[in-house]
Each structure stands twice: as structure tokens, then as C-alpha cells.
């Protein structure tokens, strides 16, 4: 079992990621993109440079151009990105879609796709959710058999980075009458510019990239199926576990930053002639948050390490715990951050509100805390 204490090499990676993000993408970077109404919603230059440093392909095997490290390392990068609210296609490309290709892809498919991911030139998206809330087995999008492959019909409502991805990894139903069954799901690789694909960017409070993607009779070749037709559920589940843990790592970075900024503010803001941090009503809430932050740190570290260990059987339990606990903690910290900053906390000028908005969207992405608690209980059999 890997220790929860960082190794020297891991500390180095953290320092590299922190230095890069502080220099190239502090929160002002995100603000500039947002204020300019940037059509991409992220900086291609930044993404390429991040890739060149080896930060994006870190957990991809060396055979496909990656760094051959694991999530224990990748999580450190995600944490730094979260601290500065850096918008990148990390979660969609490197974590979710890459996870599907690694798990289910043929050798040819991996060789075709992954080197471009590692170099930063190829962007992917994982198109799974169809409703307003995360429900991985509620898939109505259908892939009907044709002589040369499949014909894809349906709509994916909230696809992370759907409008910038070169290739979409689509979860479709090839079998099964119900729209809420694990059986009969198939993964398909669909180019975003394929005939019959329409993409609409959705503008969200956190100014990240969500898209609605429609498939109107899209022809998909047999060779574009990822893994075994009708048996994608286990892959989808593993991919979503990766996603939940990685997102928890990003969220953890954000909540740490919001917490540290708030504690610093409690020491300098004066009212009634004293620092407001001297008031017990605020002290106790800050100390309570500190405990929650430390618990969140532990579950993030452990769940990242579990993803790197094939012998672990508790990955899903840990992933759901991480997503639920860190979502709750981020919402708590971001809410308290606004309240403790007082009036300035609800202004657009202060970054705190940006953390609050990111917390809200990230908390629902890949399943709310309540979704993951229900899943945890099911996995435990009660």
C-alpha cells in the first residue's frame, strides 16, 4: 500500500506544477479568458506547454508517449490547477476519454489516439450523461446496426469540452430495451466533425466548457467501436471512478486556496477595532473547516493511490467517498469564504465568488454528493 506521505519525487512534481501554474496561469489567466468571451474557453498555448512539460500525459504508459507515472502524481497537477481555477481539457481528455481508450481500446486505437493526447495536440471528450443530473446507466442514445457498422441517434446534454474535442468517446445503447440498464452499452469513437454531429456550447456560471452534442444518424464504422459491443458498463464505471477521483483532486486544490485566503482575511480585516478572526463565532467555524480540509486531503491522497494499484478492490468505494466528501467540503468552504469576507465576498472583483461558482458546478459534475453516498451504500449492500 502506497504511503499517504509524498515521496521526494512527488514533491518535485508538485513544485514543478506549482511553479508553472503560478507563472503562466494564476486566476487572472482564467479571468482574462472569461472576460474576453473566449470561444475556446481555454488557452491552446498553455495546454501545449503543459503537455510539453509532461504534466498532461503523466499517467499514460510510456509506450504511448506518456510519463508512465500514476494518479498519485497526476493528482498533484490537478490540485495546482484547481488552486488557480485553470480551465483546461484535463478532465475530459486526459482523465475520462483517455481512461476509456486505455481500458477498452485495441492496440491500434491506443497508438492512434494517445500520443496526440500526450503531446497536447489532440483533444477528447467523454459523452455519457444525457439528463440534468448524473445517471450513468440512463442512456437513450442508440447505435443501430448497419451493414458497415452503426448509425448513431441521440443527444448528450452535458459533455465536458464537447465543443473543442477532436474525438468524442460516446456511450451508446446497442441493446437493451430499457434506457436505464447496464447491459447493452457500447463505446464509440466519433469525430466531432462527422456528418450528423452538431455541437452547441453551453455557457455556465464557472465559464468552463460544457456542450450539448446531437447525433442525427451519424455513421460510425465497425473499427470505431471501443472494446466489446454491449459490454461497456464495466469500462464506463472504471472511467467514471477515475473521473470522480481526479475531479476531487482538482476540487481539493480549489478548496485549499479558498480556505487559505479566507483565514488570511480573518487576520487583516478589522471591525470594532479588532481583527475579525479574534471573534469566537468565526474562529470555531474556521477550525471546523480546518478539520474538514484535513479529512478531504486524506481521502484524496488515498483514492488517487488506489487507482494506481490493480490489486485494490475498493476503488469504487473510495472514489465515491472522495467525490462526496470533497464536494461537500468545497461547498462548505466556498460558502463560508463568501460569508466571512462579507460584502466584498459577493463582488465579481474578488476571486472568492469564482471559487464558489466552480465548487457548485464541480460538485454536480460526475455525480452530486448524494448520488455518491447512495452508490457507496449500494456497494456496501445496504
Amino acid at each position: 500500500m502506497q504511503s499517504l506521505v509524498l515521496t521526494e519525487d512527488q514533491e518535485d512534481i508538485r513544485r514543478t506544477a506549482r511553479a508553472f501554474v503560478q507563472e503562466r496561469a494564476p486566476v487572472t489567466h482564467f479571468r482574462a479568458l472569461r472576460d474576453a468571451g473566449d470561444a475556446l474557453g481555454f488557452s491552446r498555448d498553455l495546454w501545449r506547454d503543459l503537455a510539453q512539460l509532461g504534466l498532461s500525459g503523466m499517467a499514460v504508459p510510456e509506450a504511448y508517449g506518456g510519463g508512465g507515472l500514476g494518479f498519485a502524481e497526476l493528482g498533484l497537477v490537478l490540485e495546482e490547477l484547481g488552486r488557480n481555477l485553470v480551465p483546461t481539457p484535463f478532465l475530459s481528455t486526459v482523465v475520462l476519454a483517455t481512461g476509456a481508450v486505455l481500458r477498452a481500446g485495441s492496440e491500434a486505437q491506443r497508438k492512434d489516439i494517445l500520443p496526440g493526447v500526450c503531446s497536447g495536440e489532440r483533444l477528447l471528450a467523454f459523452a455519457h450523461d444525457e439528463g440534468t443530473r448524473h445517471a450513468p446507466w440512463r442512456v437513450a442514445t442508440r447505435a443501430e446496426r448497419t451493414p458497415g457498422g452503426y448509425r448513431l441517434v441521440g443527444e448528450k446534454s452535458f459533455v465536458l469540452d464537447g465543443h473543442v474535442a477532436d474525438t468524442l468517446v460516446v456511450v451508446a445503447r446497442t441493446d437493451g430495451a430499457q434506457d436505464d440498464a447496464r447491459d447493452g452499452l457500447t463505446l464509440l469513437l466519433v469525430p466531432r466533425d462527422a456528418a450528423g454531429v452538431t455541437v452547441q456550447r453551453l455557457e455556465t456560471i464557472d465559464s468552463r466548457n460544457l456542450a450539448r452534442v446531437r447525433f442525427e444518424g451519424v455513421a460510425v464504422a465497425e473499427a470505431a467501436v471501443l472494446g466489446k459491443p454491449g459490454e461497456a458498463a464495466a469500462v464506463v464505471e472504471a472511467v467514471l471512478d477515475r473521473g470522480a477521483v481526479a475531479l476531487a483532486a482538482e476540487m481539493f486544490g480549489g478548496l485549499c486556496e479558498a480556505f487559505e485566503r479566507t483565514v488570511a482575511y480573518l487576520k487583516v480585516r478589522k471591525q470594532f477595532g479588532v481583527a475579525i478572526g479574534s471573534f469566537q463565532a468565526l474562529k470555531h467555524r474556521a477550525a471546523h473547516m480546518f478539520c474538514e480540509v484535513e479529512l478531504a486531503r486524506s481521502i484524496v491522497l488515498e483514492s488517487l493511490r488506489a487507482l494506481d494499484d490493480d490489486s485494490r478492490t475498493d476503488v469504487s468505494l473510495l472514489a465515491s467517498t472522495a467525490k462526496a466528501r470533497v464536494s461537500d467540503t468545497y461547498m462548505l468552504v466556498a460558502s463560508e469564504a463568501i460569508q466571512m469576507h462579507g460584502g466584498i465576498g459577493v463582488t465579481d472583483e474578488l476571486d472568492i465568488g469564482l471559487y464558489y461558482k466552480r465548487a457548485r458546478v464541480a460538485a454536480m459534475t460526475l455525480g452530486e454528493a448524494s448520488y455518491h453516498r447512495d452508490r457507496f451504500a449500494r456497494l456496501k449492500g445496504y
Partner: protein
Amino acid sequence: MHDLEVFRREVRAWLEASCPASMRTPQRGDIDDVWGGRRATWQHPDQKVWLERMASRGWTAPTWPKEYGGGGLAPAEARVLEQEMRALGCRIALRSFGLWMLGPVLLQFGSEAQKREHLPRIVGGEIRWCQGYSEPAAGSDLASLQTRAVLDDTGTNYIVNGQKVWTSHADKADWMFCLVRTDLEAKKHEGISFLLIDMQSPGIAVRPIQLISGSSPFCESFFDDVRVPVGNLVGKPGGGWGIAKALLEHERALISNMRERAAAGEEALESLARRYLGNDVRAADPVLRDRITQASMDDLCSKLTLRRSAEAAKAGKAPGPETSMFKLYGTELSKRRREIKIAIMGFAGVGWSGDGYAADELAITRDWLRSRASSIEGGSSEIQLNIIAKRVLGLPD
């Protein structure tokens, strides 16, 4: 072979030869705890044999110096001993506030004579100690304590007058380590001294306090012109607060530790829920099911944080700020878990006595009621929050 592996073999061989078979069975519960002392009680004669054998090697206090009766082991060796005892299922030979709290403080602050007099008797379980800290008007604000110790005219004895409260097991203890005020003029933290008092001294009266759980682990102790030799003062007059703080750190680690240990043998909430609500817990009470899940997740995160802290210590890193939350979080979580148990059990969880309830049901109820004290004793949760705010977050007074 590595020295430590040689040592491991020796330890295992000695434990196998020396630990009676009955002492390798799981305890029935607190009732099988051995506390020693002049008035020690034994549930089984082997308990005494096991204690004497362990004490003869100093292994009840493995890391204390041999000259004071300890085992003289290096920390790594002590860990080996602990691991081997666990592997063989050996019971803990002796539980004692002397071992956990007073001993480390005497080693740090005590005089040579005090160490020679008291430490060997702690190791052997001959003397049972209790802690005289809180007073009726000095709870969370411990430093406002009023029990007075005044030097007599000859300068050979302190005369102690006052009252202590929440003294754990004072009715069974032989000696008390006690905070007393020796200087009324000094600032409140600076007039306090640390005194060792023989409970057989004339003028001491002890009365157990019955708790809402029905048990009486705590006592009130009254001091009426009690004579205590000046040689029983630990450290300097007026230096008691620093000693007390060092000791409180041991106590906090101990309380969260004991809660963890107690939780290890506990039935999981989900298993209890299936027993009382049926297999479809979700249908029976979806809200309660979510409370169970929240507590289970928090429990998992809390255990991981303990592990992270232990791993950091092993890696030679200074204790992180996370250690300051263990007492607070451990006790709050264990209270919550016990409340959920009662909600799961319904009326089966509120029985007080008699044949109408199963023994394990009654035990869970008493345990729940007892748990209410855990977030008060050893520094209340609110005091812990103050400490975190000040020492970890650096918030101003």
C-alpha cells in the same frame, strides 16, 4: 540477519513461552482491563501472572530506561513488541494513567529521587494513579483552579486544602498527581504547581459521581489540611502549568486512541441496520441510511488521516497540523455513530436494565450515554476548536 529480526524472534519466543493461553483470548470488554494498584482486582489469576512476567522485563513500559524498571527498548523495538503481541493476540497486561500520562512527565520533569521512587512501581502495576486537575469552578478554564498548597512553618510539608472533581477512578487509585495553587500573588498560570499526593494521607475524602450512563468512573476528591512532603513537588514551585500542558497532550492522544480501539471491535452501522431494519435499509428508512453513509465515509476519512499522520511520523517528518484535530474529530464522530445506533435500534436502544432487553442492547445504550462525556473530558470540543484556531490557523486572541 538484521538486528531487528533477531529481536523479533526473541520477542516471539518469549511471548509464546510467557503469555498464558487465557491471556491470548479476546477480552470480554472493559471488565477484563487490568489496572493494577494496591487494591487490584483480577477476573482471572492468569492476569496477575501475565502482568508480573511483562513487568519483570519492563515491557509494560517498553521505551522507559531500564534503570527505572522500563524495557529500555528503542522505538523500533517497541513497535516490534507491539506487532508481535498483536500477532499472537496477547492482551494488554496493564492499563494505567501512570504509564500513559504521569510516567512520561516524570521522565521529563521529575527529580532523580522521584523517578526512582515512582517509575518502577508504575511499571509493575503496584501503584495506581489518578489525575487531579479539574475543580468545580475550573473546568475548561483549568488555570483558574483554587486548591491551595501552603508550605508549613518548617518548610517540610505543603498543607493542601480544596476540592477536585472528575477525577477518574480516584476511589480505586493509590496516588494522585495534582495541580495546586502555591502562589496567590502570581498570574494565574504562574502560581500553579504539580504535586504528587498519597491518597492514604489523612484529610482526603473521595466520593464517586454517578453518570447518566449509570456508571461512576469519575469522583469528587476533598482535601482538608492534607500534609504532603515538599519532596513530592515535581519541577519548580509555580512551574506546574507547563507540566500540565505536556501531560494534557498525552491525555488527548490517549482519548482519541482509546475511542479508535473501542471502535475497532464495534459492529458496523450497516450491519446493525440490516439486523434491525431488514435487508432493504433503503426502503425502510432512506434518510437514516444516508446518515449511516455519512458517518461511514467520515469514519473512513478519519482513519485515513490517522494513518497519514502515523506514516509521516515513521518517515521522520514533524507531526503535521492534522494531529490537533484527532481528539475533537474522534470524539465527535464516535458520539454521532452511537446516536445513529440508537436511531437504528429504536425502542430496543433505550432499555435501562432487566430481562426485557438483550445484554448487547443494554451495552450499546450504556455505551452511547457514556460517549456523551468524551467530547467534554480532556478538553471539550470547544476548547479544541480554540486551540486549532490559535495554534494551527494563527487567528488572533
